[in-house]
């Protein structure tokens, strides 16, 4: 039973991160390889807001999340906007460079030591017994948050006008512009939402298990989850996360703990060989001559 709970928590983590990859990819076909770093940045921002609003942990969290959203929008406006119209690969490499920059900045500002935001907020991470296993409070919060985020995103993309426009812009940017949709606004919105969900993930993970630069690796491991499910499908991201999390937890349990960092990538390669566009993704068009 404990195994199932571990899988569920890990899957929730991966899913919460993966939807950030999916949002940006779906709208602008850019793979944001700085997602892990942005997520880590949000967790560090929480550290700062926690010291600012030490009386009021919830306000601290809300402030950190809001700041992260701003960071995402600013990243688009000042950096990625310049890369629209360039080759996709150049844009992806720009995100890689951004990631490297953020990694450096985080250490410069907050030092490389392991931090504990939960302590800064004065919270204790209780462990709750459920169904014959135990789950940490932050872990439970992760599962609930992921469920809420996915439900929210689903409703947003399905029924709200901006969500529909986001899907439209992702499908045919030219036509979207002809229909009066401002692509820059839509892309900025996508970046904002993506860093927002990333911030939720980063903050909850750091509340659960502390904070240092290894968080980047978690972000990177969530990427296979997004790709296995199909880079442009939210449902896919959810299922991909479950698959990756299950594979990882089971491998650690039955085979070797050292494998934990490779399993997602092994699954990724398997998927790329069999079905590169993922379980639920749309197949990329063949190029015309």
């Amino acid at each position: 039973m404990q195994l199932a709970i571990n899988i569920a928590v890990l899957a929730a983590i991966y899913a919460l991160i993966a939807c950030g990859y999916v949002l940006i990819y779906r709208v602008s076909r850019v793979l944001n390889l700085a997602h892990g770093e942005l997520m880590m940045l949000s967790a560090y921002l929480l550290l700062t807001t926690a010291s600012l609003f030490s009386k009021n942990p919830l306000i601290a969290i809300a402030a950190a999340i809001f700041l992260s959203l701003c960071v995402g929008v600013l990243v688009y406006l000042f950096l990625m906007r310049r890369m629209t119209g360039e080759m996709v690969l150049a844009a992806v490499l720009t995100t890689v460079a951004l990631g490297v920059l953020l990694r450096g900045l985080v250490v410069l500002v907050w030092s490389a030591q392991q931090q504990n935001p939960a302590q800064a907020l004065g919270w204790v991470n209780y462990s709750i017994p459920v169904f014959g296993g135990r789950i940490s409070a932050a872990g439970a919060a992760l599962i609930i948050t992921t469920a809420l985020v996915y439900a929210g995103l689903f409703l947003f993309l399905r029924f709200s006008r901006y969500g529909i426009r986001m899907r439209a812009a992702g499908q045919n940017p030219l036509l979207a512009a002809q229909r009066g949709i401002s692509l820059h606004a839509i892309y900025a919105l996508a970046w904002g939402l993506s860093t927002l969900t990333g911030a939720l993930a980063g903050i909850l993970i750091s509340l659960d298990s502390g904070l240092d630069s290894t968080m980047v690796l978690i972000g990177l491991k969530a990427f296979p989850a997004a790709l296995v499910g199909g880079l442009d499908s939210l449902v896919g991201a959810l299922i991909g996360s479950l698959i990756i999390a299950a594979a990882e937890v089971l491998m650690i349990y039955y085979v070797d703990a050292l494998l934990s960092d490779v399993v997602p990538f092994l699954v990724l390669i398997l998927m790329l060989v069999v079905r590169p566009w993922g379980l639920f993704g749309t197949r990329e068009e063949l190029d015309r001559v």
Partner: protein
Amino acid sequence: MSSREPRASGYFRSSYDQGLRLIETRMQWTALMLFLAALGTFPFIATSFQLDLACQVFLAAIGSIALMLLTGYAGQVSLGHAGLIAAGAFTAGILFKEFGAAFWITIPAAAVVGALIGLIFGLPSLRLRGLYLAVSTLALHFIVVYLGGEYETKRGFSTGIMIDAPRIGDLLIRDRKIWYFVLLAFAAVSLLISLNLLRSRTGRAWAAIRSHETIAEALGIGVPAHKLLAFVISSSMTAVAGALFAYYRGFVSVEAFSLFLSIQYVAMIIIGGMGSLLGAILGAIFVTLLPYMIEYAVGFLPNARSYAGMLAAFNYAAFGIVMILFLVFEPQGLVGIWRRVQNYFLLWPFKQKPLGGSRK
């Protein structure tokens, strides 16, 4: 690579063979000789620290030339270059540790292992392109590094594998000066191999694949074979660089081959300038020297002492900024700047090149 266009000095080609020559004019001969002479005298005037920098540049140059062949010429993106360097380094380390193999065995062995891994790295390229290919090489990087780490822990070398200085015949390669010439020779050979590949049928096939795969196939180019060839050659060269790196350091450990190293190699070819071997070399120089320049610059900051522990972070930040600046403002890289300067002087007092002769 020699210019594929007529010189501004009034040298004109009168046959197609001339277009294939690496060195066309006497001026180029003279320049090359002077350059070689400078390279030859450098170790006798340089300090030990400068020699170390030069050696690092040569090592990086082999790797970046290899990556340039793959990405800049054949158009196959790889984010797993560090994995290949690790593969080469571990081949040398394992052969030395387990079998006491000599330098002249481990280096070719690294080349062979590199070629095999290149084949594996290349297989996804038959189905994937662009982003997806980059991702698959990224995944392979993690797997290679994992295997290396597994070997280290299982054999009890958890801190890394120590390697003795190599020996060729009676010559022990330990002195920095000797290393300088050995690495220079390896770098020169990789450069020559690349130049020759690029001016031959293979190079043209790669160029065709890079511009459009389907059209290349329609022109009768064996696309899968040439893609795999690009991976095999590039990986093999990279693995040799990795093995040399292991010997030069006298030490192999997985920590050295993080994702950041892959990013650094990608940065070398971007900063240098895509599609140019000169760019690969310039990029290797720039990226290798950058940390030292930053260390020097940080020394000027007030309270320099207090930042000493944070040099790595400064490195990361500066590296990210430089990479972004090049991607956004100078996508042609250092070579682009170099060409503009060159053109400025060649064309002076005019500003524009005639339409037909403009470089892309």
